[in-house]
């Protein structure tokens, strides 16, 4: 009867987690999702399925997530507040759970003006913190945002994001506190390149005791080319030390260098006190994920069996 996700079990049983990401295609092609998913089976505990990332229309994160789980990799459904009001959000939550999704990551979502449908009306009926709060109430108290009863609520393992490098840092830390207070059980961070700055941030997180209230997973991006790292640098709230960009430029084989940098980062981030997992964003380079997992000693992934006694 236990409906706990594999990711939740991995973490609750005291393991260090490894998650990654699948970007659904800009098409209705199920095979593309299946192919990516198959590459990740056994290499990660779960894969985030992005929700129209960068405000570009792609296959729905719920649909792609279900395709991924049919191939054997557990999805973390990303749900943004950009395109759906509270009616559509709650409805999709119910649907995702009914189809077997067990992890949910709540985000604000990129503004439509950053994407390819700049004429779109943006929604933002509720924000990501209010969404976390709404899902937590639905799960714990069985009530919708309307106050109406839900007889069979979902029970997602509930996640949120944090950006250790975004401004203003004091307010960003308050937001992380709010997210956890609202019900986030795990946190995935923005990609880390600047490990020193990240360590300082983690020290503040630990001082607030937040690492004991939620499982904090450090994000990393693997860059395959100089262009890839240059594009990554342009993302809001991203901080990349110049030395990494120089290394990528100087390397004969940029892909090998990108992978080497990622391995170093994983190695260093694993040592940071309070970090409970790594989240690898491979930006379309899925085949590198099993290699990174293996070479950094994170394989095999724990079995994380269902516990019989769970209520």
């Amino acid at each position: 009867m236990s409906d706990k996700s594999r990711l939740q079990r991995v973490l609750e049983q005291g393991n260090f987690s490894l998650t990654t990401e699948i970007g659904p295609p800009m098409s209705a092609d199920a095979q593309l999702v299946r192919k990516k998913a198959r590459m990740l089976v056994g290499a990660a505990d779960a894969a985030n399925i992005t929700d129209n990332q960068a405000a570009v229309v792609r296959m729905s994160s719920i649909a792609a997530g279900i395709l991924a789980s049919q191939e054997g990799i557990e999805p973390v459904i990303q749900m943004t507040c950009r395109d759906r009001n509270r009616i559509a959000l709650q409805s999709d939550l119910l649907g995702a759970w009914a189809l077997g999704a067990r992890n949910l990551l709540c985000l604000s979502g990129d503004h439509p003006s950053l994407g390819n449908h700049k004429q779109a009306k943006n929604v933002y009926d509720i924000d990501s913190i209010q969404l976390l709060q709404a899902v937590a109430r639905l799960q714990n108290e069985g009530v919708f945002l309307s106050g109406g009863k839900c007889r069979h609520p979902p029970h997602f393992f509930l996640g949120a994001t944090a950006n250790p490098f975004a401004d203003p840092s004091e307010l960003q830390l308050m937001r992380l506190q709010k997210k956890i207070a609202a019900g986030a059980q795990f946190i995935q961070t923005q990609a880390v390149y600047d490990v020193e700055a990240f360590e300082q941030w983690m020290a503040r997180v630990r001082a607030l005791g937040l690492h004991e209230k939620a499982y904090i997973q450090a994000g990393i991006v693997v860059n395959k080319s100089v262009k890839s790292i240059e594009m990554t640098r342009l993302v809001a709230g991203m901080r990349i030390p110049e030395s990494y960009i120089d290394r990528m430029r100087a390397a004969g084989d940029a892909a090998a260098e990108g992978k080497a940098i990622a391995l170093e980062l994983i190695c260093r981030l694993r040592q940071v006190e309070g970090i409970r997992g790594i989240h690898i964003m491979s930006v379309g380079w899925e085949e590198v994920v099993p290699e990174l997992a293996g070479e950094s000693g994170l394989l095999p992934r724990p079995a994380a069996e269902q516990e019989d006694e769970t209520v």
Partner: protein
Amino acid sequence: MIVAEQKPIGDIAASLGSFKNIVIASCDTCVTVCLAGGEKEALEIQGLLTLCDRESGAERAYTVVNIKRQCDDEFFEGENDVIARADAVLSLACGAGVQFMAEKYRSLPILPALNTKFMGASRGLGYWTEMCQGCGNCILERTGGICPVSRCSKSIFNGPCGGSQNGKCEVSPDIDCGWQLIYDRLRAIGQLDRLSGIIETRDWSTSRDGGPRSLALPDARVGKEDERVV
């Protein structure tokens, strides 16, 4: 105040169609202040339309009238006759003024000359920015007097989102991040603790989302029941 800007003159000329006798009605309030729909602009538009007509061979007569406030009945007196003789009125008021005239002069086409943009404030010569979306449920007391609805691109209530960088919004480096402004202000006045709690999901039914809104003050309306418009 309400901020508006003129439509391109070609669009205005095209909207006149086959009407010959046009009244151009300026409005003396907000749109005069933002240099879009005052008497001066009405005269300019008259001049430009006359030039357009000369080129296209259209024959039209224009009369400029200046209305103090196009959204209130009492300011039309004295202009009723001129307006009644027109084929159409080109209104330089905001959207409210255009519609008010259309209700008042039921048989006359009323055409807009402006694009009404926002409720905002003057930020120096010739520069206005949006400040309020009329959500009907003001929370400025919690956000340091800076409106998250109109000044955050996502209208989020527990910001900032991850896209805030160096005080600017992810939408454009020309837009200040509303949540950075809120933070700076609350810190400056020693009230950052106002942000420590989660701002709960909003009731948008007080906003436009609840349908077109109205406001009736019972005390001010005593004895006025019979005069209700529409």
